[in-house]
């Protein structure tokens, strides 16, 4: 069976769902074109669920899930999957942690069993030594991707700037060195019992498998796992649609080119307005025909690069971020002025139908091209099941984008791109810059 529903306008991937008695939500999507199958687990826990003093713990915990479980040795999960000819990894985000493998289809049972063993019985394999080693690995991950990388602190500085103190999205995902040092085996046990339970997880299987056989395997391996006692609720996360005032932070850093990240509070992922925001983001910054690229990179030539993206947060508020890197000869003040001017212009006059069409066409192709991969299909099923309990939304994404009108994009822009909803995070090369000129720019735009 292929995925080709004749015309792409009606393209659908098959989606089946069921629950185990312990609360595990399972989604299945068959496709027999290639003998491979993807297994994907989303746990509904991320850095947002960390307690004070334990920043980075959700991610450190993700590392520990590769350190073995009751019937699996340290690093054996990796070895068994690679030996089977599979690929695998895990990742941690603000709202979720995912684990995934793609294997030849005759190895589906192995992938499911490995995931079940660590969901059911992780703790017998946890030792102080393993925790200490992974702590060092994660600290090196922090050094590598954050501290020793130009603009590597962007995400954590942005979180700090745009979210109120103690808001669940406000603190660092990778965590501080101090908090990483403080994490203990006791924390591991508590976090596991609280969040790594079948009723707080979604399991998706996509690719070449037999539905009856897969259901049997899932029931056999995951069925015996006890459900949890319910996860603690996050604090209320509603925020007004705009910041209410200009936010701005200047970071003098070890970078060669100035770079401005300007964020706007924007509608949460999956909402009707989200699709308008996502299209607005593509109009602004997706590919060379986008507003910012055309204007700042091509025409005025003050930027070396320009883009825009959303974080796709499903709770509280999302943010839309415009990202512009200056040319070496562009002053920091000019960079800020020019970006402000573009945003003012779009806020004042809106965008055109042609621009909206371009953005939607690009998004649609990307969406469809990405669904070629079994791993990607499984991940999207898990995402929609985790956030909305509706994995079938994977088939509605294209329609949701296609139904975005220019008017809706412009309403969104008018509501969210005003001066009271802009947060600027400005990176400035620490060498060769006189701080006074940057501060003066601050006064000018503040």
């Amino acid at each position, binding site marked *: 069976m292929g995925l080709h529903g004749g015309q792409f306008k009606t393209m659908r991937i098959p989606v089946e769902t069921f629950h185990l008695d312990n609360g595990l939500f399972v989604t299945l999507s068959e*496709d027999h074109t290639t003998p491979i199958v993807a297994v994907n687990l989303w746990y509904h826990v991320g850095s947002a669920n960390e307690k004070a003093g334990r920043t980075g713990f959700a991610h450190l915990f993700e590392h520990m899930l590769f350190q073995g479980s009751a019937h699996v040795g340290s690093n054996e999960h990796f070895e068994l999957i690679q*030996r089977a000819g599979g690929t695998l990894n895990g990742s941690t985000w603000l709202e979720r942690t995912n684990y995934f493998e793609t294997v030849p289809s005759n190895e589906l049972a192995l992938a499911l069993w490995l995931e079940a063993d660590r969901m059911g019985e992780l703790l017998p394999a946890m030792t102080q030594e393993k925790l200490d080693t992974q702590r060092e690995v994660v600290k090196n991950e922090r*050094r590598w991707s954050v501290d020793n990388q130009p603009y590597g602190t962007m995400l954590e500085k942005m979180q700090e700037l745009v979210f109120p103190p103690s808001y669940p999205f406000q603190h660092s995902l990778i965590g501080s060195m101090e908090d990483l040092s403080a994490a203990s085996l006791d924390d591991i046990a508590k976090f596991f019992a609280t969040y790594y339970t079948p009723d707080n997880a979604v399991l998706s299987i996509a690719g070449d498998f037999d539905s009856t056989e897969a259901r049997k395997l899932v029931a056999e391996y995951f069925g015996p796992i006890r459900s949890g006692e319910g996860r603690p609720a996050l604090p209320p996360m509603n925020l007004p649609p705009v910041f209410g005032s200009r936010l701005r932070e200047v970071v003098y850093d070890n970078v060669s080119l100035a770079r401005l990240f300007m964020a706007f509070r924007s509608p949460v992922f999956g909402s009707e307005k989200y699709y308008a925001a996502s299209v607005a983001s593509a109009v602004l910054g997706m590919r060379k025909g986008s507003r910012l690229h055309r204007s700042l990179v091509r025409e005025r030539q003050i930027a070396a690069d320009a883009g825009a993206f959303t974080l796709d947060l499903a709770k509280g508020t999302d943010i839309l971020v415009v990202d512009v890197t200056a040319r070496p000869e562009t002053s920091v003040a000019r960079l800020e002025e020019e970006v402000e001017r573009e945003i003012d212009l779009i806020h004042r006059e809106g965008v055109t139908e042609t621009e909206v069409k371009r953005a939607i066409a690009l998004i649609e192709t990307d969406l469809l091209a990405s669904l070629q991969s079994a791993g990607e299909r499984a991940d999207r099923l898990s995402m929609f099941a985790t956030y909305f309990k509706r994995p079938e939304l994977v088939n509605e994404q294209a329609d949701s984008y296609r139904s975005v009108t220019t008017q809706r994009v412009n309403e969104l822009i008018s509501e969210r791109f005003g001066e009271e909803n802009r947060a600027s995070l400005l990176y400035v090369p620490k060498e060769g810059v006189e701080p006074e000129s940057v501060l003066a720019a601050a006064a000018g735009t503040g």
Partner: protein
Amino acid sequence: MVTALRPKPGPTRNYHFPNFHDEILPSGIRLVTAPVAKLPVVTILVVVDAGSTNDPKGKEGVAALTAGTLLEGSKRFDGAELAEKFEQLGTAVESGADWDSAFIKITVLSDQVDEATKLLGETISSPVFPEREIERAKAERLAEILQLETEPRGLADEKFSEFLYTEESRYSKPDEGSSESVSALSGKDVEEFYRSGYRSGSTTVIITGDISTEAARALVTRAFQHWPSGRAPHRQLIAAARTIRKSIHIVDKPEAPQSELRAGHVGLPRNHPDFFPTLVMNAVLGGLFGSRINLNLREAHGYTYGASSFYDWRRGPGPFVVSTAVQSEVTAPALREILLEIDRIRGERISEEELSLARDYLDGVFPIRYETTAAIASALATLVIYDLPADYYDSYRKNVRDVSADAVLQAARSHLHPDELQTIVVGDARVIRASVSDLNVGDMHVHGS
């Protein structure tokens, strides 16, 4: 309780690399098509034998600049109009050059493939390379070079190539050119490079996805009807080592929290007869998560987030390199472990368990690599660029499985050269200098950043 009983694999299902059709069109253009009707998506990949190794001496970067500005203006449209036209069709053209070829690529929904291919063929058959766009692309490349000064990973890679190859070698300079060579390039250089290199005898169009071979042939014949005939000239390929004396170069970054470490030597050309044994050998050494180098540096010692080794396969002998980033304080111990692992794999036969891990992985993962039209196109490009036999992908898995532990040992002894090792560290010289001097890594050179 989850069962302790480990599942056994079921019967394997056959997999065949997508069937493809390979022909030379009357125009001289080579057409390779792989119809795959899984989703209504098509990838078109144009490969021209005009990669960076063809840069004339002193004009390093012209191949990349030419490919990069191909879509910046045609007889009918300027660059902004072209971007707009493609993007309205839901696609964006990626173009560039790597060492061995220039490429122009789009992925498009199948109902737009006719129009997109026509526009692509017409545009790259008649580019005008406006001066303004050439100068802009140069300025953007210069900005990128400037960024490297504060980007330790990229800087380490670049310095590694620079210290590895003799100055005569094109490989010693960045594929997209240095600030010196790029600054000197002109629109005339680009036009000249295009005129001499973008010829039908040097061009392959690869089309994969939801389209028949017949439709693809008709499309390409029409869209590329003005593509000039002839073949591209080649610059002589020099890939000699700068030195065969062991040495270590420290590029000083005061107060860097980590050392970016590269250690290696000139490797093998892609078409070397020992490709498969070397591939398996490297998988055991540093090519997998469960490889010796990663398990040692990351899982046993916690020195790093990750460590790997690879052969950079090119037409000429690309580098063999071990690559990692470690906390500054443990630079010397980490380097010592790398040296030990290289010696160990040359010293004794790998275990059956290690051999089967590497072989089973490379064999088993094969179908997962070709899920998308873009991945299939890129695999077909590899066939074309390295002139591999048509049954290369059909025999790949058998070739991997046939590698023995003896062959791995032989490959390690023939193709790892610890006595010629060049080590590059981008990091805090004050912290690492004394400790690495105790290691047997050769003469030390410290460079200001």
